[in-house]
């Protein structure tokens, strides 16, 4: 009975290692902190606790309190501190405990972190990584279960990356830290492989040792297929893969496209995949309207209507706050059942 994971095994173990997404993320941070003294991590409960969702487990022990800093519950102040430190050449990684809390510090994020580079005509760089936990599925209700990537992706000036698996979690973290721009890094609690939360069988994955970058702005074909493209991100990639496996038994060959990054959005990969499968299902754990699902559909429609053999289908949270009660929450999340239904629908 614990909400804390064990620290990752000591570095130096030979590849391939199977790690949880949390451990892979921490490994990426730790390797960059070793390489570059200007990298530091700050946020709430990221020190002794190791991050409520295991995002910093072991970092305090390894790097000490000068580089792994617990902050007061003052998101505006410490988010801005990260921005200012980045302006002066440091490379902060700053954690917002839940994405749901963005509203207490959004001005720092989108009016400052995201805009200073532009306003300065390119003269000032703001290399911050903003890490934050997203997603529901464990009855944490309306203020602690949201994904909100559509909100971040709508506002210019920040890159937005969303790893779904351990290898990408490490590679995108390294790429984000090395990027000279603000990068919002959204990790799904349900995909972190935490001991105290239900896991999918895909929560563990092979993670290369040593430094590598997963390119920001490049989607990945998580499963190639011919009949339909399921475009999605984050935990829903796992669900989509499960659904694809299940539908394969019925002779349906679904392609799962893990977008991995919303800004930049790999529109070419979407068009290429849909160009082959000619059918599109977008799965989005964020709210339905005015977000990712609409953007992906519009990307295809405005490019070439003939690409699509059937109207695209969206599976998202139907514009309702996330309800607490399990049955209600499951009814609004993009569950495997809803994804499978959508695939069947788009196949006609």
């Amino acid at each position: 009975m614990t909400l804390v994971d064990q620290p990752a095994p000591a570095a130096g173990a030979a590849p391939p290692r199977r790690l949880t997404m949390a451990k892979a993320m921490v490994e990426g941070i730790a390797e960059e902190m070793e390489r570059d003294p200007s990298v530091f991590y700050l946020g709430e409960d990221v020190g002794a606790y190791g991050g409520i969702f295991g995002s910093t487990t072991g970092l305090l022990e390894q790097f000490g309190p000068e580089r792994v800093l617990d902050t007061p519950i003052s998101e505006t102040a410490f988010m801005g501190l990260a921005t200012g430190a980045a302006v002066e050449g440091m490379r902060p990684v700053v954690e917002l405990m839940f994405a749901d809390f963005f509203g207490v510090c959004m001005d720092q994020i989108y009016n400052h972190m995201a805009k200073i580079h532009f306003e300065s005509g390119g003269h000032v760089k703001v290399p911050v990584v903003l890490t934050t936990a997203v997603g529901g599925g464990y009855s944490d209700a309306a203020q602690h279960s949201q994904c909100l990537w559509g909100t971040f992706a709508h506002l210019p000036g920040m890159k937005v990356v969303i790893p779904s698996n351990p290898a990408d979690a490490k590679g995108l973290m390294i790429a984000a830290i090395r990027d000279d721009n603000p990068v919002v890094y959204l990790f799904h609690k349900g995909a972190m492989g935490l001991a105290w939360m239900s896991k999918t069988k895909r929560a563990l994955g092979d993670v290369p040792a040593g430094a590598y970058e997963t390119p920001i702005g490049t989607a990945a074909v998580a499963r190639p297929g011919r009949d339909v493209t399921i475009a999605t991100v984050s935990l829903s990639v796992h669900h989509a893969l499960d659904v694809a496996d299940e539908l394969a038994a019925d002779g349906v060959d679904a392609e799962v496209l893990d977008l991995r990054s919303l800004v930049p959005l790999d529109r070419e990969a979407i068009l290429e995949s849909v160009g082959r499968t000619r059918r599109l299902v977008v799965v989005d754990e964020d709210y339905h309207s005015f977000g990712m699902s609409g953007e992906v559909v519009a990307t295809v429609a405005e490019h070439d209507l003939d690409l699509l053999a059937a109207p695209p289908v969206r599976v998202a949270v139907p514009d309702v706050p996330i309800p607490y009660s399990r049955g209600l929450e499951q009814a609004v999340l993009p569950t495997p059942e809803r994804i499978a239904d959508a695939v069947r629908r788009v196949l006609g």
Partner: protein
Amino acid sequence: MATIAPQDELLDAPLRVDLYRTMVLIRTYEERIRQEYHADKTPGFDIGKGKVPGEMHLAAGQEPVAAGACAHLRPSDAVTATHRPHHLAIAHGVDLDRMTAEIFGRDGGLGHGRGGHMHLFDPAVHFSCSGIIAEGLPPALGQAFAFRRRGTDDVAVAVTGEGAANQGAFHESLNLAALWRLPVVFVVEDNDWGISVPRSASTAVADNALRAAGYGMPGERIEDNDVEGVYRAAGRAVARARAGDGPSLLEVHTLRLWGHFEGDPQSYRPGLATLDEADPIPRYRRRLLEEGVLDEGRVEAIAAEAAGRVGRAVEAALASPEPDPATATAYVFA
């Protein structure tokens, strides 16, 4: 509402028994919730499983704050709590059956199972809470504003943790309440911790009451988790608010007896082994026994009464149906 005794006079015996009874009811309730919460999460703690899923923040050790402050209130007064709301809800008289049903995610809950334990709203007693640190304060200002406009002498009691006192919302709320002389009583529950971060690592001053001066309002810190100290100080603050003299700030040095949330290993926390010695309920019981206000029989009766009440609440909750998933998108708009 009893009259407030001066600092050096003893409080009335019946009042002291009431304070004790409230604390016992709260503790009994939280022990039961804790048990229900963990009951079906084993083997292997899984936060999303069981009859009561999700995060669970219990207030064991903080009962003196709720009992002492809410003793001055009537149902038309407002209370705004945090992510750790049960003690205040119970002390302010929130419907226990429907609150429990909400915690169990049932349709008969205060929020038809939509809200959960961090989102308890009982308009009958103007109770609300929020899971966002310090952000429950601003709406309390609006309740106080409405009370004054309506011409009543109702007040709003707005509660946060000591960690929350470093949020911008805290500052803005105190300034605006003072500026507009709103009938608000701000209560900071200083339990020394904001999750794993000790007060010394979050707050530049040792006493939030010091901050009251920055808003021109009275500030007072109550040491020792003393329910009677809270009662007296809250009495002054509530009276001041009712009289139209504006807000006050109280900080109570209280105790988080258990983890931040259930499942918190508290490995960051020194002194865990001896924590129970500081439990305010046995301490107050011993004092009332020594001073002859309580006797063993009365103690047992109070415990039995609490157990009975809590048992009935849990039974009622479990008797309420799960919400129909087909209604999952209801209540977005009125």
